[in-house]
């Protein structure tokens, strides 16, 4: 199996207010097409691990390989490019830009990547919206759609550059049961139909149980 994401011997400390070890000599790898959930109690370090893996947090010891390539910690511009091209993010909060409409929000990372022309990026964005069943909202301002719809727009945005992996930090945390199910179904569909790799942090036990693999953490260590 092809490894998309690999972490070796990750150690991380919080320095403020006192020095605490949050991640302890932690290693894991995720294969292509896997739908993985990362669970654990509050404060066990699961979100911290996700942000370390996402390259946004560079204050750690150890090695991270994305698509077989080692991530340098110092090169902010290079890491931004990696995130743009290879990682899609879905957060608990949607983080859509109110100044733009739904379609433009989805297009932004694609335009940044500049791999396709503007017209092509627009076409691809429409396709993603169609997959998520929200193509009718394309021209609405992003603050004029409902909470569940916003989260689906955020997923479409994460998909726009066909990333190697989608990382989610409690993507259903703010949603009701119905919308949570919709989001889960979308993730499931992406994994089964499009062989999309997903790594989702959640403390929703029901959500985690339905994924392919559960990584359980406790006190900065992986226990299963």
């Amino acid at each position, binding site marked *: 199996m092809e490894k998309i994401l690999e972490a070796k011997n990750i150690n991380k400390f919080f320095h403020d207010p006192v020095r605490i070890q949050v991640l302890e000599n932690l290693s894991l790898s995720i294969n292509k097409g896997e739908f993985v959930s990362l669970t654990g109690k509050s404060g066990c370090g699961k*979100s911290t691990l996700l*942000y370390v893996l*996402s390259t*946004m*947090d560079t204050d750690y010891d150890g090695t991270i390989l994305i698509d077989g390539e080692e991530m340098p910690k110092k090169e*902010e*511009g290079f890491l*931004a*490019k*990696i*995130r*743009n*091209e290879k990682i899609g*993010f879905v*957060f*608990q*909060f949607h*983080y*859509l*830009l*109110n*100044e*733009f409409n739904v379609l433009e929000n989805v297009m*932004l*990372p694609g*335009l*940044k*990547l*500049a791999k396709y022309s503007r017209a092509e990026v627009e076409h691809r964005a429409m396709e993603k919206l169609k997959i998520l069943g929200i193509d009718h909202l394309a021209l609405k301002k992003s603050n004029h759609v409902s909470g569940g719809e916003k989260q689906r727009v955020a997923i479409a*945005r994460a998909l726009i550059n066909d990333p190697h992996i989608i990382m989610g*930090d409690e993507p259903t945390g703010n949603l009701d049961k119905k919308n949570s199910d919709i989001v889960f179904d979308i993730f499931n569909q992406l994994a089964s139909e499009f062989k999309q790799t997903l790594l989702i942090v959640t403390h929703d036990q029901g959500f985690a149980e339905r994924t392919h693999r559960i990584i359980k953490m406790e006190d900065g260590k992986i226990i299963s």
Partner: protein
Amino acid sequence: MRKLLLINIAKALLLARWRQTLIAAIGVTFSITMFITLLSFMSGLNDLLDGLILNRTPHVRIYNDVKPKADQPINKSSQFAKTHNFIGSIKSDANRQAIYNSEAIIKSILNDPRVLGLSQKLTAQVFFNDGSIDITGSIFGINPSAETKLYHFDEYITTGNSADLTKVNNSIILGKGLADKLLVQIGDAVQITTSKGDLFQLKVVGTFQSGIKDFDNVQSYASINTVQKILSVPNDYITSIQVKLKDITQAPAVAKAYQQLYQTDAEDIQTANSQFETGSSIRTLISYSVGITLLIVAGFGIYNILNMMIFEKMDSIAILKATGFSGKDVKSIFIYIAISIGIFGGLMGLLFGFGLSALIDQIPFNTASLPTIKTYPINYNPRFYLIGIVFSFITTYFAGWFPARKASKIDPVVIIRGK
């Protein structure tokens, strides 16, 4: 492509808060407007005041001064060459105020590429006779056409015509004050007595007002030939050559060179009128510092508004960074915002500044000493507009730079996890 995308994002952020942005831009507009108006007005005034003296003053004046000879006979004697000679009771040597060989000097000066033109001048001290009263005065012998071309002579003629000086024999143009004292008008005759006691009748063909009242009370102009006749001197007798240069700053060097070359005295305009230059430069300095202060204040306004905007847009900045925009991109976005405020505000400022100065240009300004000035003077120098726009660009750039750097340093993890 990358730039275009960032500009589009900047535009969206700007338009989303267009009221705030407009206020920031109005700050810049106001300061540029005042900057342009202040400088145009101040420098118009400077030009006017300088023009009173500088336009009428030759850049280099060649003449023979009344002073003792530097080379006294005893110094030339080889017998006393090694001694230190004390000489008492030296008298100034002034038996000839005329310039030697003036025609040759004029010809050689006209060949100098640095010279724009020259006019000759000759002065006669006379008494104007009005019944039993004698009024002391002087008559300048000039060439009216050269004088008009180089020193704006025509601008000060309030009645009559300067060309009549050459057309009408034995004619004179009197200062306004002098004409009033003598109770004469155009067409009347005035009687003068020269210092040697000769009597002359001259016909008045005009009056002038120089803007300096003391001048107008004692001075008058006649053609060179007329004055040579009054003084009963030959045709090549002139007492000063007034040179106008292409570049006024070269005057001291040219004066020094001529002094050696022609063995006469030569004075440059900077030495003769140093006080005017000082006044002008200080007035200009004050206008610039007030203008730039206004701009800096506007810059702080932009700084504040951008800081607020960044605070409000923390989430947007965080997600942009998470989805692959680098710190540099975020910085560019905010700098674009600042610069577009600066350029928009600045251009509006140029427009309003031009309008306001044009308005001031229409306000009546009548003063007895300046007959040709009817409204407040304004200098529409394009340089002020250039400086204005460049400064608005620079201040807004720096006002944007610090908030932009702050935005580029925002750690997306802190924002996203803080939710």
